[in-house]
């Protein structure tokens, strides 16, 4: 931008204004940086909703999924007949078809310390996220039962991608035994992953089960933990009366025939099933969590409010800064700087502030993201898209404020500016 206004000087005036501003510049940068941090944080929350919406499907290996017509989202899938999966399997394009069973089940969460009893449950209050973080497993917590999500699979055709695929392979032989399960190693601390070696008879629904190992699966807003077991164990543990109903039908098809197979399945199968390709179901899940749930809507509002506040604050910070520099600008004008050139300095200076603020906000946000991940157990990722959005917001407000101020300088007489 500076090169538009010859002769170029180095370092440019705007840069030197910022650097020599000292505490004043620091105050401006920190004010804007905190406002931008808020934007990044809210975008991160919304992103967490999106990530957890598709995360489960991301872990599964499939090209096309068959779902019940009552399907709402991954954690409320309802049932479809096994027959539909068999019908789909009959198509030439379909290379593999495997069911996935999914249901909520009641898990007995071990107490801390292990000798506390049901009696304590009425007195004790839940430790909050901060207590857990400070005191960890030293926080007293009575025995309780909580629901988690139970997944049942055909062990020989496990529809999972790495690294869960490897976890299943490793424990395959033991999972075939009665009442053996894998527990999500990223569970909420309540579910006792850390205590797995100190405990023997774990309890799932009304059965005693043994935890033979773990698998990593991100937690979401709907379930705090997951267990994985063989289909035989699943039927017994979750009380499925017949093998005639499944929750998800996962199909792998010949490469390049996905769209065509989806169309064929839609015309072939009755209306009690929904047929989605991988990309379609991912879109549907994101849409459900962001637009159909209150959680998604609240976080979207958070982004909006934070963006407005940031815009106001950035404007405030920059116009303050320009006001403080007014005498200098007046001097420049008296020295013969053209209004255009002066405007260039102001706008450039605004943008330099914004770049510094943005970098600082990314640093602060990275810390807050880690804290949120640690305390709430939801995935917080700084995506390039969100970074770009925040930068664009900052640059846009910075540039418009700069231009507006420069416009005001135009009409001013150098003498008045003093």
């Amino acid at each position, binding site marked *: 931008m500076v090169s538009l206004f010859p002769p170029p000087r180095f370092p440019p005036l705007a840069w030197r204004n910022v650097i020599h501003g000292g505490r004043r510049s620091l105050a401006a940068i920190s004010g804007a940086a*905190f406002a931008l941090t808020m934007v990044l*944080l809210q975008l991160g929350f919304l992103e967490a909703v999106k990530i957890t919406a598709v995360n489960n499907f991301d872990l599964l290996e499939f090209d096309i999924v068959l779902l019940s017509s009552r399907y709402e989202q991954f954690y409320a899938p309802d049932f479809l007949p096994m027959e539909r999966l068999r019908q789909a399997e009959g198509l030439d394009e379909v290379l593999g078809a495997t069911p996935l069973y999914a249901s909520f089940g009641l898990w007995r969460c071990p107490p801390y310390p292990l000798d506390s009893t049901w009696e304590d*449950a009425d007195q004790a209050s839940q430790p909050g996220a901060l207590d857990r973080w400070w005191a960890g497993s030293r926080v007293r917590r009575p025995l309780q039962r909580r629901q988690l999500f139970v997944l049942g699979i055909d062990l020989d055709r496990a529809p999972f991608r790495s690294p869960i695929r490897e976890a299943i392979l490793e424990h395959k032989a033991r999972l075939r035994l009665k009442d053996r399960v894998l527990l999500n190693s990223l569970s909420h601390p309540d579910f006792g992953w850390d205590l797995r070696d100190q405990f023997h008879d774990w309890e799932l629904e009304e059965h005693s089960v043994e935890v033979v190992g773990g698998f990593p699966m991100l937690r979401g807003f709907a379930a705090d933990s997951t267990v994985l077991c063989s289909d035989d164990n699943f039927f017994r543990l979750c009380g499925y009366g017949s093998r005639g109903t499944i929750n998800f039908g996962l199909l792998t098809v010949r490469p390049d025939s996905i769209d065509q197979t989806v169309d064929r399945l839609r015309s072939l199968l009755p209306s009690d099933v929904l047929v989605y390709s991988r990309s379609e179901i991912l879109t549907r899940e994101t849409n459900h969590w962001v637009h159909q749930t209150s959680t998604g809507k609240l976080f979207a509002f958070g982004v909006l409010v934070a963006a407005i506040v940031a815009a106001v604050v950035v404007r405030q910070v920059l116009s303050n800064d320009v006001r403080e520099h007014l005498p200098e600008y007046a001097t420049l004008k008296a020295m013969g700087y053209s209004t255009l050139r002066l405007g260039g300095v102001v706008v450039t200076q605004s943008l330099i502030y914004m770049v510094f603020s943005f970098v600082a906000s990314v640093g602060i946000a990275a810390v807050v993201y880690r804290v949120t991940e640690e305390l709430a157990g939801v995935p917080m990722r700084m995506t390039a898209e969100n970074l770009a959005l925040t930068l664009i917001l900052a640059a846009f407000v910075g540039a418009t404020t700069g231009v507006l101020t420069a416009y005001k300088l135009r009409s001013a007489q150098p003498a008045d500016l003093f």
Partner: protein
Amino acid sequence: MAFGNKVPLAWRNLTESKPRLFASVAGAAFAVTLMFMENGFRNALLDSMVNVIERLDGEMVLVSPTLYTLSVPFSFPLQRLIQAEGLPEVESASPVYVTTRTGYWRRPDTGALVRVCVIGYPPEDDALDIPELRENRDAWSRPNVVMADRESREDQFGKFETGVVSELSGRTMEIAGTFALGINVQSNGNLVMSDRNMMKVFPELGGPSLIDRKVTVGVLRVRPGTDLDQLRVALREALPADVRVLTKDEFIAKEREFWDKVAPVGTVFLIGVVMGFIVGAMICHQVLHADISDRLAEFATLKAMGYSNAQLFRVVLMQAFYLSLMGYAAGLLVSVLLFDWVHHVTSLPMDLSRNNPLAILALTVVMCLGSGALAARSLISVDPAELFA
């Protein structure tokens, strides 16, 4: 606005330039709005999760010992409620059945099946304290009718209106009337029906006989003047360990505690609130600091004129105080409008008065005074002559 017989300097400082006053107030106002919103989101979560429990018309409740949130209903046998009713202190005991995962409403216009929260109880028991449900008791005592929550999400269920006929989990149902309850973060709509209709639609709630019906919450009305703690002890002795006895307030507190402390969404909103306060405070500081440092020269003049440090300090603090009040008032106004909008879009309860308006006011004032004091420090240490340099 004047203090003593002196010129109201702080007030004049602040109001001397209208555009600048506007900018400063706007900055503070948005900081206040940010705090209100983050708080409001968190309370919307917590308040909405207890909306059903708060309407229970009774002083004590029986629940399954396993129950940790009403969104994941666990049950106990109806027999316990009959036993509890036998105690002399208990005036009446009504069963409330809740299902959050198995009720599907067919949206009439699109045919889509949408999950809905269904609450059932004997209509004559008035277990929920909602006027429309009490007044239309006869209407929803009939077979195959439901009462529908007007505040359910219209974009998912279509409009809930009296006379609409559709299907609930495979059975034809007519909407006999509507009421206002409100949705929560876990469910987007509510239906209320009689216990008899509920057993027909959800046979899994029944058992081999009447006393085995699976009750989610037992609502106890106690005789006036009963000591609740004594009654709790009496109920514990009279009933087996498969039920837990709670006062209504304890039940509300337990439900809130779960969503606040255990569920990830509560923690996320809490982090939002904390960051909102930090950023809000930073913005207040920024606004005030700029305002004071702009006037350093004028303050130096006053100092040279013989104003004492204490007097100057007071002017700065007064100025900060006025700014904080104006910023708060403007922020409150913006928040009222925003809360209304969020409520309109999400149907969640957004109640400004439950968002610690006084705490936020106190914080705004303290922040502004603190920033004022920080800014004023430079006035005190500095020689008037130097300030002009």
